């Protein structure tokens, strides 16, 4: 474990020595096609694939999550119940859209298209997309959504988004951490060459006792790679098979 940590640090330091790509206006340029978890996808060796930039597998990260989640006792009990039943009630198993930040943890590419007035994020996973204007306030009375309503601003070289108007039907991760419509997310993106450091702070007075910050890192994919179609409901055979008799007997 210690060796792995040292190796990861070396990779990280190498990443941090890279320059920040910038737009003509001098802002950090996040444009490109990215993916969390490298394309080591589900544990495959990155070198076996043709899509990732030359970044070590150890630099890829689904999510860094402090434990335990700061959930209220009743909410923690409910999340544990989901985890103990092998998360058979996970909304995305029904092909429902993952919210923020979980959508970034999907092992599929996403593309960032950055303009001076807005940023678009196009995710392969679940056909999700976000159009994020640089704005000081959200629209009045937005409808609640799986992906919420996002606005952005700059904090130095950090791209910051504020996300509200969630519908309370998404999980923050794959461990049963459900949410309510009170969910409010602040995301912070920092770029270093071919890596993005991502931080998400969730506040949800409906289930949490305090804000919960998690981290991921994203790897730039090779030129020519792009998000493709992922129509989840096309052939979703899994639902009747989730958590079969052996689990129910426990």
């Amino acid at each position: 474990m210690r060796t792995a940590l040292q190796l990861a640090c070396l990779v990280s330091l190498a990443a941090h020595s890279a320059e920040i790509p910038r737009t003509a206006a001098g802002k950090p340029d996040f444009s490109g096609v990215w993916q969390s978890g490298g394309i080591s996808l589900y544990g495959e060796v990155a070198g076996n694939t043709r899509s990732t930039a030359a970044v070590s597998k150890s630099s890829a990260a689904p999510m860094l999550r402090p434990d335990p989640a700061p959930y209220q006792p009743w909410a923690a009990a409910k999340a544990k119940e989901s985890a103990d039943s092998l998360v058979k009630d996970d909304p995305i198993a029904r092909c429902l859209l993952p919210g923020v930040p979980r959508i970034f943890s999907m092992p599929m590419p996403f593309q960032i298209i950055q303009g001076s007035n807005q940023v678009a994020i196009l995710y392969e996973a679940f056909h999700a997309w976000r159009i994020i204007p640089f704005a000081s306030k959200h629209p009045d009375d937005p409808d609640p959504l799986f992906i919420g309503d996002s606005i952005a601003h700059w904090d130095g070289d950090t791209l910051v988004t504020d996300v509200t108007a969630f519908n309370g039907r998404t999980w923050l991760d794959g461990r049963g951490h459900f949410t309510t419509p009170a969910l409010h997310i602040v995301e912070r993106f920092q770029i270093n060459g071919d890596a993005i450091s991502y931080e998400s702070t969730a506040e949800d007075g409906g289930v949490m006792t305090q804000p919960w910050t998690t981290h991921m890192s994203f790897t730039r994919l090779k030129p020519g790679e792009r998000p493709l179609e992922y129509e989840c409901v096309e052939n979703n055979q899994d639902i009747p098979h989730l958590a079969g008799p052996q689990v129910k007997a426990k």
Partner: protein
Amino acid sequence: MKKCLVFCLAGVLAAVVPAAAHHSFAAEYDANAPITLKGVVTKVDWTNPHTYIYIDVKDDSGNVTNWAMEGYPPNTLRRTGFTRELVKPGDAITITGWRARDSASRAAAREITLQDGRKVYLGPVAQPTQ
């Protein structure tokens, strides 16, 4: 250094906690029930959220069972060089994986040995707890 810690620790976790794209492995498949099957491909579903390869497997008594073997989504396979024509109905293959918890003829696939002896991955490694 704080940033480094974030990248580093996240990287270490990545090695042991691959993200699931659609459903928990353990919710459907038993990581303690590995299986190796030899048979003839009857159908290929090049579909989302999973590909499926169906194979007829004959037991010692000559009875034939058609197995459904679940794999990565098509885009993931394409990115590893596994294209939709690589495995076709009629091909004789060997395939490894893990049995479904609730079905006698369903499994999560891992490695296919093709007719020409090449080995390719159809699906992920087993995840016992997620």
